[in-house]
């Protein structure tokens, strides 16, 4: 399909999107994007296609958008990350091409965010609910990351023997350092907004319901110093560059690792998908609660494993 760029604000807003909702503030030349992949808010292929088209439209209209602000339209969820059912399908089919393609599409989105300053766009994201795996990865390249206090986030992939492969390592290391990236990615645990702020992954934490005011404050603070701020942010990213080739190489590794998932790993993934479905169906507990349960089970498993190993080595000593 040949990409025909939209012309001007009317063209930008006029596309018939299903998974994103756009609003325009002409005084600030601010494009507000609200994601709404219902009923399970994740990065489905369609959602990523629409996001990419909207970003390509911005690129095709240089100077039109000065501020880009993203948030979720789904209550209590920013984004659950990857489309788990699609992963299960591709892993079961042994389809590494599609896994790589999915990863590349994710990387292209974060890569646009990474270079938004080059296009004259300042980016802000507001997270008001849970964001997991790819959801958190997608947030990290924004210039300003705002979390409401109730929001929780983490990289749970290790719990089902995978790792976050679409920018988590590069962006977390750059923002928070190697030790934090190590801790977050290898533990798989969830973090509160304040914990993420303490680790410098989140720039601003505000009370629940205060996110919109925080966006306004950020945008109005940046707007008078827009050109200088963007120049500084470009320099910041030149000083600590992230390479597209490195992101793609990690995607390849991620796809290869995904193909090695066992039936047990896939069942854990399905368990998480089922929890997402419960939440989408109106239940109080969802993926986050299921992850906490998995963390607990993993911890108990570890302890039991250590206990068993100790017993085995004691047993061996006794025998010898």
């Amino acid at each position, binding site marked *: 399909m040949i990409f025909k760029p939209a012309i001007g604000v009317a063209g930008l807003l006029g596309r018939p999107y299903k998974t994103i909702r756009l609003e325009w503030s002409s005084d600030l030349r601010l494009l507000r994007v609200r994601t709404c992949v*219902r*009923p*399970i808010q994740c990065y*489905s*292929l*369609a959602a990523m296609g629409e996001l990419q088209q909207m970003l390509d439209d911005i690129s095709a209209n240089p100077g039109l958008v000065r501020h880009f602000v993203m948030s979720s339209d789904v209550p209590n969820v920013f984004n659950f990350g990857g*489309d788990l*059912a*699609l992963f*299960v*399908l*591709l892993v*079961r*089919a*042994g*389809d590494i*091409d*599609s896994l790589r*393609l999915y990863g590349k599409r994710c990387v292209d989105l974060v890569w646009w965010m990474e270079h938004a300053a080059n296009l004259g766009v300042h980016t802000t994201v507001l997270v008001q609910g849970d964001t997991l795996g790819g959801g958190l990865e997608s947030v990290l390249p924004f210039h300003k990351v705002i979390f409401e206090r109730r929001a929780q986030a983490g990289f749970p992939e290790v719990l089902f023997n995978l790792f976050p492969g679409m920018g988590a390592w590069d962006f977390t290391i750059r923002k928070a350092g190697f030790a934090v990236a190590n801790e977050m990615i290898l533990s798989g645990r969830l973090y509160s907004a304040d914990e993420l702020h303490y680790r410098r992954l989140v720039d601003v934490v505000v009370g629940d319901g205060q996110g919109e005011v925080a966006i306004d404050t950020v945008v109005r603070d940046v707007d008078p110093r827009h050109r200088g701020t963007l120049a500084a942010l470009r320099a910041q990213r030149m000083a600590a560059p992230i390479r597209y080739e490195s992101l793609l190489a990690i995607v390849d590794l991620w796809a290869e690792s995904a193909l090695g998932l066992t*039936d047990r790993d896939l*069942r854990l993934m*399905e*368990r998480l*998908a*089922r929890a997402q*479905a*419960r939440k*989408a*169906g109106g*239940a109080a507990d969802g993926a986050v609660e299921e992850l906490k349960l998995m963390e607990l089970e993993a911890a108990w498993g570890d302890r039991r494993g250590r206990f068993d190993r100790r017993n085995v080595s004691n047993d061996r000593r006794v025998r010898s």
Partner: protein
Amino acid sequence: MLSFFAELVSATDEDRRGFETHPVVIDAVANGMPLERYRALLLELYHVVWHFNPVSAAAASRIGDEHIAVRHFLYEHMHEESGHELWVLNDLEAVGVAPEAVRAHVPALHTLALNGYNYWAADRRHPCSVLGMLYALEVIASVYGGPFAAAIRESLLLDGDRGVSFLASHASLDTRHMAELRQVMNAVRAEDALAAVVESARVNFHHFTRIIEAI
């Protein structure tokens, strides 16, 4: 260049998501189903599974040597799927529906539409369209069958695989089937055959969603 299987996954992703995110499916995967609705689903499923091999046979009989790999794949596949409608029959018996009642059951309109389309597509559209049917139904079985079986087991307090043997076993069985299906699809080159596979997968997702919606 992207493989055909990868293109099929992309081209039918919204149809798959349409099934997965349908409120009835979401509710069934999350909470299971009341007994009466599960019985109704199995009754429809019996008639879908019953026609699985005859549709494959109809397609195989029309596939020439230009797609010999597909024809041979269908032979193997039919052999493996042979008798699986009896698993559904056993599950129905386990949840209180006698075999005579199953055989006397008149399929719902959506089930007739699904089966009717698959025979028509094999006969009139393109015999390789059967691969689209296999893809859609094996995605449903291998990706959603496991969580759905777990939800049914919990909600109906079933013991082990009793009453859910078809769903539970296909969740793991179709893992290998999916990989084989991908390989055979990637060997198909003719544009008309590939278009027919995509159409068939979309129609099968659509009708199967309607079947579940209606029960």
